[in-house]
């Protein structure tokens, strides 16, 4: 499923919702984007552009990856555009605009990216900021399900964006994929209801 890049048509015909999934590594705080509610070696390989000692290539251990947010878009095309844009922004942060990105990060006393143990909160915070950039630059409307609304940050960052915030069901980490499936199911039901409304009523 999530082992290669998927075109909008493929996602549509295989019953996937127009979502972009943000998975967070609870050990290092790194975030990976995915088109389907899974996280595999593909995303990790594809989105680790320049691993270094501060931004290591994370392991694919499934217990370490938790959903951080699910961004829902109006269509599969838009979802894929948003996904591409997020990955590109990540590339900019790691490669092409590295200095710019480094200047924005919080530092410790040794001028390293602030960390506690192996955890660097900046990765998750940057991905939230990238999400706002994508919505703003591509003029997309979205509904975002957060694992905790805490992560969304201050409302001022979302001002002027066509965005709705919601919270994922609080479940134990073992059931995280069930919560994601429920969001997908919800989208399908809404879609079916909208289609039923659009169809002309048969004449009596």
């Amino acid at each position, binding site marked *: 499923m999530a082992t290669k890049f998927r075109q909008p048509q493929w996602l549509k015909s295989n019953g996937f919702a127009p979502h972009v999934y943000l998975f967070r590594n609870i050990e290092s705080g790194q975030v990976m984007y995915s088109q389907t509610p899974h996280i595999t070696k593909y995303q990790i390989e594809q989105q680790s552009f320049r691993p270094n000692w501060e931004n290591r290539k994370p392991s694919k251990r499934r217990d370490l990856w938790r959903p951080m947010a699910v961004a829902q878009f109006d269509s599969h095309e838009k979802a894929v*555009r948003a996904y*591409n*844009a997020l990955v*590109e*922004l990540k590339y*900019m*942060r790691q490669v*092409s*605009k590295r200095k*710019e*990105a480094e200047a*924005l*990060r*919080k530092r410790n006393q040794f001028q390293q990216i602030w960390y506690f143990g192996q955890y660097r909160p*900046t990765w998750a*915070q*940057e991905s*939230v*900021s*990238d999400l*706002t*950039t*994508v919505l703003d*630059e*591509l003029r997309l409307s979205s509904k975002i399900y957060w694992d*905790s*609304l*805490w*992560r*969304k*940050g*201050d409302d001022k*960052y979302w001002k002027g964006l066509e965005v709705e915030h919601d919270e994922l069901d609080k479940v134990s980490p073992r059931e995280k994929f069930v919560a994601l499936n429920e969001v997908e199911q919800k989208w399908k039901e809404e879609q079916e209801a909208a289609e039923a409304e659009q169809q002309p009523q048969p004449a009596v």
Partner: protein
Amino acid sequence: MSRHFHTTALVAARKRIPPTVKLRPPILPTINNITVKEDHPLWQFFHEKKFVRDQSEVAFTGRAWSVQELRRKSWEDLHGLWHVCLKERNKLEREIHIFRQQGDNPVGSDYQKLNDEIHKSMWRIKQVLTERDHALKNAQKEFKVNGDQYLQEFREKYLTAENVETNEWYDKLERLQQAIFGIPEFLDADFKVDLRFVQGVKYIGQLKFDRFAEQIGRTDLAPLRDVAELYTLFEESASAEGVAEACAKIDEYRENDIVIPASKEVQVVQGFVQEKLESLEAE
């Protein structure tokens, strides 16, 4: 006009994020987005929903409960007090933990002193409960040696007392049932009758009969034949009316000549208890 024949790449490029985009600073999470339910159970760890109380708010003039005071309290009171103390200590321990994290030494502060005082009350509650437990164990040990004599004495007192239809005597009977024969005030649905229970039923039934038979003129029923008759007496209240009612039932019972053998007593009493519980449930 475009000099190229292809258009898809141009369309795709227009849909991509511009490479000139300015990176935005990381968005810090904020607790302002989170609303906590008013009745969230973890609020119990906070005094009036405050992160940490002021020094003046924990200043106290009281003292810990003394053992002598606690000895006079019932089990329910002690249980309640323990709970109150525990909750208060949870709050204090949390606050002390925060001071420690910030590098302040909470030893000697009002928080720590109040915590110590409450701790004192708590170990004293334990002390009192231990005393009671030892007393119960000693009494049980002693009862094995001269329990019969004690029951005999109680019987004599009960029979010779001027008036036993008082709350004091009802309480005494109840305590005797509970402590010596293990007959609880309220039975559970899965209560198992044992030999001790049957002995209690026999003792109490006989006691009530001996006390009131003469008063209501039913000495003709003596001697009581089996455990079914004694259970009827046991079940009724310890008063002349209660015993009279029981005697009426015994009359009915004696119309058929069944006598329950000693080997079946536990089984039969279990049946009676079950019946009683079922009828109560149906009500």
